[in-house]
């Protein structure tokens, strides 16, 4: 014997072929031939050979399976099996299966429509539910996650209920609240200059108290998280995000233990987090351990995300009461800073899934309805088919076929359809889940969606459900057939459908149309809401604008003056470039998620008590920021050299602020007191147009702009440049200019402003798109159902129609008769669906923007569209009916 070849043909495929080929010796010879050809090819091209083999084997298997179904006898003879009338159990089963499959193949239209309907229903449901389960239902990947609370500060009546907290306040909770085993905190994300292995780049950093990860209950994927030491805190340790570790350090295990530089300070990398980490820091590259509670805590602003772990015994209510008590103490202790501020503890899970929850449940509802329609459609198709075959069954019964074998065949047929539908559905579900895992994160902040895979349990339920449906609808006609006396069917003169099944079918079609209208209206509402959202004036002109962040770190920029000199110089240089129309800088961009805010009040009237003072966003700007961003000046002036000198305290406010506090007079020249370092007033010198800071859907907030040269509290600015042409071309110019002034400074997070504006409407766009997708699928299914029912009704009435024609009915009358039947069904469904939509519209209210759930345009539009499609669907069978001739009706017998 020679040695075995390195690798044989693919075993699974070979097994399949073995099973498909005719038995006895013939199959073995064919296998041998293919194997031999494979070996010859594999000698030179082993990889190609495997593919070739699989392809040829699948073709062969398909051929022989088809042959076997088509003419089973020839194969039995060819393969030398004995032909016997005394069939064994297994043999009889195969015979029944073959009969079933053959009768299915004779009606490819029915087969295709049914299988596709089932596949769409299963696929969409399993995919959406798998995502929903991963994102919403699976517990967070932390130890005992149900005991974790995110604790926010909130100043009613502000809409922002999840404000970051002040370190001093967090420290007070941490020391006073006994419901918690521990309370820790992590800072807002901040840009930092990170140097490692000789290269410098900008990365998002969060400063974490050393026991932060311990409180969350998360283990490092590699190395460890921060050391928790009661006596003295270990600062200056760094934990990397999994992504930063794989991208920047190429997943090198040696990264752990290495030293890197963060904003000029040395730090040791001690560990890497697991890939799935959720809490307050999407896109954070690394966490740096510091004692966030040290130093003077009063009045140092709010910049911490606190998280607490409840003790075993404590409830959320107890914890809330305890925190409230501490917070009211803090209010009276520091009335200026804490006046009106309350605590808002939220289970961490709720905070993490946030608004996405509603969208996912809505989509789940939509695909649930889709599955309903799909099932109804399949039931309808089966019913039609069963009635159609009543005569066939009767003939076969009277010829001596046993009722059990007929029932068996029907069962096999319906199970095969359900099985094929399920297989295709599983494939669709898999593809859908993958597609969503890849595509959705761009639109929604869906925690963990990347890890979503088809859920085994969900799949089992969906496929099991379909098989049961198949069984049920296979059985009903089988049982019915077994009961019917063949002679009554054969003798029946009129071939019209029985009144009872006809009514059931009509009812099913009406239900389908109704449910489709609900989905279509939903899609219409979301679409209208989206168009309203997109027509909102963002208050800026984002086209042609490029932004990029510069973070001044290191000893050279410790002095405020150095920061001002750098940024002013950079902006002036950019303005001098011919490619740039104008340039400026701002601390926080609109629609970028981050911002700074503080309380203020107008000084030209008596000061309100501290807890009634309102908060405004603060933006510090340099250069021609208003011009570069395209923010229109309404009154007064923007900032210029006049605002630079020491002692100048000028401010520009937005329209909302001006109109709210000085509705009848100009805001120019009015003094403002801002809780921001010193308690001296600022004079308003200009009013600008509102900008949608928090995204298109959010109402404009009150905003105060201050001149950066007078308020250089932040060491980073978002440089904003308006290009003469394509803004993307500015990236290299911007980078060069920054390097030209300081080669050690990276330019971070370079983006086209248009992207930020688009991103703020990405979630509603994706929701509307998915809803439209499901609604379209539902409509197609409903229309198929309507068409099927009408076409069937027409085919059953050929005789009657022919007679009518014979006695002089014009084709037009016949046409109208069928269309009337179709439109009656459609209208009934639309009416029912309209009522359902009005009743159930409230669930969508929170997802709609400036539109009522009962919006007549959306619902009316959906109804009109559905009716039009339904008319089209009736027109085809109607036209066929109108062409029936009296001769056709004779031919029917």
């Amino acid at each position, binding site marked *: *014997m*020679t040695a075995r*070849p390195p690798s044989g043909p693919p075993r699974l495929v070979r097994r399949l072929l073995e099973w498909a080929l*005719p038995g006895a*010796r*013939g199959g*073995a*010879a*064919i*296998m*041998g*031939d*293919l*194997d*031999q*050809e494979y*070996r010859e090819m594999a000698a030179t091209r082993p990889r190609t050979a495997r593919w070739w083999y699989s392809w*040829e084997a699948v*073709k*062969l298997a*398909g*051929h*022989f399976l088809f*042959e076997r179904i088509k003419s089973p006898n*020839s194969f039995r*003879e*060819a393969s030398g099996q004995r032909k016997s009338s005394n069939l064994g159990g297994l043999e009889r089963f195969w015979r029944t299966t073959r009969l079933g499959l053959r009768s299915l193949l004779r009606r490819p239209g029915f087969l295709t429509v049914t299988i596709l309907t089932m596949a769409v229903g299963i696929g969409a449901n399993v995919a959406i539910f798998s995502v929903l389960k991963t994102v919403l239902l699976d517990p967070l990947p932390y130890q005992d996650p149900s005991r974790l609370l995110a604790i926010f500060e909130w100043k009613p009546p502000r809409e922002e209920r999840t404000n970051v907290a002040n370190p001093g306040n967090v420290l007070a909770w941490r020391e006073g609240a006994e419901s918690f085993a521990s309370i820790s905190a992590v800072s807002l994300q901040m840009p930092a200059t990170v140097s490692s292995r000789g290269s410098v780049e900008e990365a998002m950093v969060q400063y974490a108290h050393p026991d932060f990860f311990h409180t969350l209950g998360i283990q490092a994927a590699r190395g460890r998280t921060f050391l928790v030491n009661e006596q003295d805190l270990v600062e200056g340790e760094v934990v990397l995000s999994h992504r930063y570790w794989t991208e920047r350090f190429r997943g090198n295990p040696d990264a752990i233990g290495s030293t890197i530089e963060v904003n000029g300070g040395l730090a040791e990398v001690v560990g890497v987090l697991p890939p799935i980490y959720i809490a307050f820091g999407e896109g954070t590259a690394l966490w740096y351990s510091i004692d966030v509670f040290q130093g003077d805590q009063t009045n140092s602003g709010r910049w911490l995300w606190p998280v607490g772990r409840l003790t075993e015994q404590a409830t959320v209510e107890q914890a809330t009461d305890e925190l409230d008590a501490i917070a009211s103490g803090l209010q009276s202790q520091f009335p200026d800073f804490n006046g009106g501020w309350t605590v808002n503890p939220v289970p961490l899970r709720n905070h993490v899934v946030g608004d996405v929850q509603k969208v996912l449940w809505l989509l789940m509802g939509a695909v649930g309805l889709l599955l309903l329609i799909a099932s109804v459609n399949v039931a309808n198709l089966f019913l039609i088919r069963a009635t159609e075959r009543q005569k066939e069954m009767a003939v076969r019964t009277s010829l001596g076929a046993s009722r059990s074998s007929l029932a068996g065949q029907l069962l096999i047929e319906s199970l095969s359809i359900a099985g094929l539908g399920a297989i295709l559905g599983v494939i669709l579900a898999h593809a859908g889940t993958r597609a969503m895992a890849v595509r959705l994160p761009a639109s929604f902040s869906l925690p963990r969606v990347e890890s979503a895979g088809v859920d085994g349990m969900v799949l089992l339920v969906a496929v099991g459900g379909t098989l049961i449906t198949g069984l049920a609808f296979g059985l009903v006609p089988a049982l019915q057939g077994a009961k019917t006396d063949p002679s009554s069917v054969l003798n029946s003169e009129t071939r019209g459908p029985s009144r009872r099944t006809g009514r059931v079918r009509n009812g099913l079609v009406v239900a389908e149309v109704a449910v489709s209208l609900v989905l279509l209206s939903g899609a219409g509402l979301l679409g209208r809401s989206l168009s309203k959202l997109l027509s909102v004036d963002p208050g800026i002109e984002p086209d042609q604008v490029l932004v990029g962040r510069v973070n001044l770190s290191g000893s050279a920029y410790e002095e405020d003056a150095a920061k001002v000199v750098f940024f002013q110089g950079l902006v002036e240089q950019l303005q001098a470039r011919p490619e740039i129309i104008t340039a400026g800088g701002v601390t926080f961009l609109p629609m970028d998620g981050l911002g700074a805010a503080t309380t203020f009040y107008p000084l030209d009237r008596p000061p309100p008590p501290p807890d009634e003072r309102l908060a405004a966003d603060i933006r510090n700007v340099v250069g021609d920021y208003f011009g570069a961003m395209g923010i229109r000046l309404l009154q007064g002036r923007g900032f210029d050299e006049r605002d630079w000198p020491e002692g100048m305290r000028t401010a520009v406010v937005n329209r909302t602020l001006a109109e709210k506090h000085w509705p009848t007079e100009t805001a120019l020249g009015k003094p403002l007191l801002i809780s921001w370092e010193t308690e001296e007033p600022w004079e308003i010198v200009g009013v600008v147009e509102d900008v949608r800071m928090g995204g298109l859907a959010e109402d404009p907030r009150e905003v105060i702009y201050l001149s950066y040269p007078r308020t250089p509290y932040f060491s980073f600015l978002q440089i904003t440049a308006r290009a003469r042409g394509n803004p993307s071309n500015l990236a290299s110019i911007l980078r060069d200019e920054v390097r030209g002034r300081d080669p050690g400074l990276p330019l971070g997070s370079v983006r086209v402003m248009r992207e930020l504006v688009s991103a703020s409407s990405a979630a509603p766009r994706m929701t509307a798109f998915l809803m439209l997708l499901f609604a379209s699928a539902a409509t197609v299914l409903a229309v198929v159902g309507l068409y099927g029912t009408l076409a069937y009704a027409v085919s059953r009435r050929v005789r009657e129609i022919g007679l009518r024609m014979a006695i002089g009915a014009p084709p037009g009358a016949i046409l109208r008769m069928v269309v009337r039947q179709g439109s009656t069904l459609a209208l009934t469904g639309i009416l029912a669906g309209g009522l359902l939509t009005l009743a159930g519209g409230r669930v969508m209210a929170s997802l709609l923007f400036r539109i009522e759930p009962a919006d007549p345009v959306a619902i009316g539009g959906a109804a009109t569209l559905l009716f039009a499609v339904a008319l089209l669907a009736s027109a085809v069978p109607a036209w066929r009916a109108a062409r029936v001739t009296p001769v056709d009706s004779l031919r029917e017998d």
Partner: protein
Amino acid sequence: MGSQGFLGEFEQLVLLAVIQEGDSAFALEVRRMIEDRTGRSISRGAFYTTLDRLERKGMATWTQETPKDQRRRAPLRLYRVTPEGLDALRESRRALDSLSRGLDALLERGR
């Protein structure tokens, strides 16, 4: 039907190739010969089905041979055309000839 009727075109091709291959008319070789001589690619499934059909009609028969290639463990079938098969081929040929008579000019021109 008394006689076996006319042979299909593909059946004729298979029978002819079996005769041409003579002592090495194994399925694999027969198929390759048809592909080589006609320049057409032959579906494996259709080919084996046709061999089976010819066998059932009694026009071809086979004997089991021991493979020369030692790696091949599967049986090998050596096909042979039966006298009935040869008759059927002749009959088809005759029919074709008689119908083509006088059309030489037309049929040759296509070459």
